[in-house]
Every structure is written in C-alpha cells, then in structure tokens.
C-alpha cells in the first residue's frame, strides 16, 4: 500500500509549484481583504481538497487501468486513498494550528481558540465533502462525478429545506434542541465530533470499496 500512497504524494510533489502559487494567492487575498480568518480556513480546506485532485491524476494516462493490474487487491487501492485523506486532514489541522498561532500576532483582535475553531470547522466541512465525493468519483469518474455530486447536493439541501419547513410549521422547536447542545461538556463535544468524522469517513470507505470492487476499466 505504501507504493500507492507514494504515487499520490510524488504526483502532488511534482505539482508543488502550482499548489504553492495557489496558497500564496490565498495569503495575498487575505492580506488585501484584511481578513486573516480567511486563510485560517481556506488553506486547510484546500489541503484536504488536494486528495480529490489525485483522482484526476489517476485518469491521466489511464493510470487506473495500470494500477488495478498491479499485485494489489482492489480494497487496498481504495484504502490507500483513504489513508491519504487522513494524512491530509492531519496536515491541514497542523497547518491550521500554526496559522491560528501566527495570525493573532498580525491582528491583535484575533485569538488562537477562535481562529483554530474556524479552521477545524473548515476541515470538518471538507471531510463531509470528500466523503461524498470519493464514492462518487469511484462510481462515475471525475468529470461525471462532479456533476452528479452537484445534483446530489442540490437535492439533499432542498430536502433538508423541506424537512425544516415542516418542523417550523409543527410545534417542535429546533432552536430548543440546539440550545441544549451548549450545556453538554466541551470535551464530549470534541470527542463526539472526531468519532462522527471517523464514522463518516469509514462509511464512505465501505461504499467506495463496494463500488470499486466491480469497476471495469
């Protein structure tokens, strides 16, 4: 499996110049807007999204076809991708922590905890996105996968909208439910969030394995 992860890392490394240009672009944008919150979530977000670009790299040169012919079972190929995702999540959080430490030095109005919280929120958001994207990409390929994901997001968000409006019309109070969350212990909340993230990634992994098992190239 190490070989597969290395393949993705080395491909990304050869794209490092482009990646750095984009990151510097984010920093410049952030300075121009005088909004340091912006870099503290956009950079971690971008780093996790890089996993998605490795899917497009595998479509170059029909690498997918070659990789399934190598001495790996298909599960291992999918697993390597999810390990890469975990690696990118950890990297994103580390960079987020560094940024959260640095930005308050530039802007005294900011503090570590609130900046880091926005970075964590961005990473959690992007984990949801990649958990949906990866099975979609395995099923439909990168081009079609993007379109289908867009349709899915539209469908899910409008469904949520409908459900919420149903709740509003009834006597149930969602706001009351969320206010009870504040009373729960902070540590339980963090541990819970981590467990939920891992669970979501794991479910996404199971779906991807199932899809990739019968995929033909």
């Amino acid at each position, binding site marked *: 499996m190490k070989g597969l992860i290395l*393949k993705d890392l*080395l*491909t990304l490394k050869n794209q490092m110049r482009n990646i750095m240009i984009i990151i510097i672009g984010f920093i410049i944008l952030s300075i121009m807007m005088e909004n340091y919150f912006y870099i503290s979530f956009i950079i971690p977000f971008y780093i996790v999204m890089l996993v998605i670009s490795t899917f497009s790299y595998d479509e170059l040169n*029909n690498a997918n*076809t070659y990789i*399934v*012919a190598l001495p790996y079972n298909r599960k291992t190929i999918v697993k390597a991708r999810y390990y890469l995702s975990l690696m990118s999540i950890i990297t994103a959080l580390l960079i987020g922590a560094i940024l959260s430490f640095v930005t308050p030095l530039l802007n005294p109005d900011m503090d570590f905890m609130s900046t880091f919280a926005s970075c964590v929120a961005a990473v959690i958001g992007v984990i949801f996105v990649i958990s949906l994207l990866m099975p979609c990409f395995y099923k439909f390929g990168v081009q079609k996968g993007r379109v289908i994901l867009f349709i899915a997001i539209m469908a899910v968000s409008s469904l949520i909208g409908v459900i919420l409006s149903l709740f509003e019309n009834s006597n149930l109070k969602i706001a009351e439910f969320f206010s009870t969350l504040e009373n729960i212990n902070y540590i339980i909340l963090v541990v819970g969030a981590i467990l939920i993230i891992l669970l979501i990634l794991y479910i996404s992994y199971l779906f991807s394995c199932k899809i990739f098992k019968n995929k033909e*190239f």
Partner: protein
Amino acid sequence: MNSISVENLSKKYKHFKLDNLNLNVPAGSVIGLVGANGAGKTTLIKLLLGIIKKDSGAINMIDKEEIGIVLDDAFLPDLLKINDINKIMKNIYKNWNEELFKEYLRKFNLTNNVTIKSLSKGMKKKLEIATSLAHNPKLLILDEPTSGLDPIVRGEVLDIFREFMENDEHSILISSHITSDLENIADYIVLIDNGKIILNKSIMDITDNYGIIHCTKEMFDKLKDKAINYRKNKYDYEVLVDNKKEIKKEYKDLNIDKANIDEMMYLLLRGEKE
C-alpha cells in the same frame, strides 16, 4: 506447468463477446496473440489481469507478483518523473531490483529524470518495458509493446525479450500488430477473430505445413479440396494450405511460398472457402 491456463472464458458486451476461450501458456514458451483491431486481444489481456471481470470460465495464473506487464495506452500518472517510478515500484513489488531498473534505463537512453509526460511515445514505451522487467518476473504479459518504436529499438527490445526467455521457467504472452516481430520470437501463434480463437499453432507447425500457393484457375481447380481458404486476385489465385508436404509430393513443379503471418491472417479472416 502452465503460466496461464484459461478455460471456457467468456465476457459479453453489448456489441461484442469473447466466447468460450481456451488457452494455455506453458512455462518456457512465447505465445503471440494476433488479430484485427477489436478482435478481442486486449479484452483477453484485461480479463487475465483482472482489469475487467469475467462472466464465466476459469483463469489460472501464477501470482501477480511474478508477472511483468506492459499495457496498451496505460501506465502510471504522467506527472511522475522517471526516478519516481523507481521509488514507487520499490514499494509495490517485493522483488524490485533497483540496479536492474537503472541498467535498463541506461540501455534505453532514459537517463534524464524528466516527467513521463515529456517523453516521446517510443521513449514512454521503453520506460514501461523497463518497469515490467525490473522485478525479475517469470511471466510477461505485453499488449502491443513494440508499437511506436522505431525498427532499431524494436530490435533491441526483442533481444531483451529473447534474453528473458533464456530461463526455461519464463514465458511471454505478447499481442502485436507487427507480426514480423512475433515471427522472430513466438513459439505459438494464436489468432483471435470476433472473440474466438480461430488458430492456435506452433511456429514450427506453421513453417513445416502451411504454405501459400499462387496459381492459375486450372491449378486452383485441382487444389481446391486441399485449400483452407483462398483469394481470387486479378491474374491468379492465392491459396492457403496446411499440408504443403503432401501437395509438394503430388505436384513436384508447384511453387509453394512460406506462409507469413500477415498473409495467413488475411486469408484466414478475409479469404473465401470452397
């Protein structure tokens, strides 16, 4: 001992099916796979390597660790550099031999560490061939490995394959449109047409027994019972036979040409039958 044995292998697509294929690749032999475009050569190779799934039948093969592959138009992402291939493959094949890989790269003049993308088609093919050989495989599965190579490099590559075959345990399954390459290295020729194997003969059998006769209408009328297939040209008949020794005995003055694979293929696939 067979490196590959295939029994009743079938795979159905909407407009094409690979139908009940049986094939053995004995250790120590080179099998040349020929056939027109879309005949099913690549489908067969993809089935063997698990790139696509079979509908029915059985495939028995040696472990994938011991197989070297060159695919038609598929390799690692082309943003990678040549040295990256070494780093990656070292972690994929247990028997990866870094020194051997570098030796092949030197042999093929691939000494600059550039991206795969920047290589010419021929150079890229050479890199793929070097990669297929560097983990000391016992079996090579090669889909059009010599396409895009100039005659000199093709000669070099064929020499490397010949060298590979010096070990009795080694075998090669190779598909190619350049049939003269196959005549040079194959022990058996397998002709696939429309998803079926229509010929599976040793080169020795072909050289000893097959022949092509160019003759007049009168001669053709005498020969036609013995012909496999024939083609009527403007001035003569071209007749494929598989028992040239007997015919030679009967018609001593008749000139029987050696059947090369291209002509045989053409007559078998497009010729007429009485």
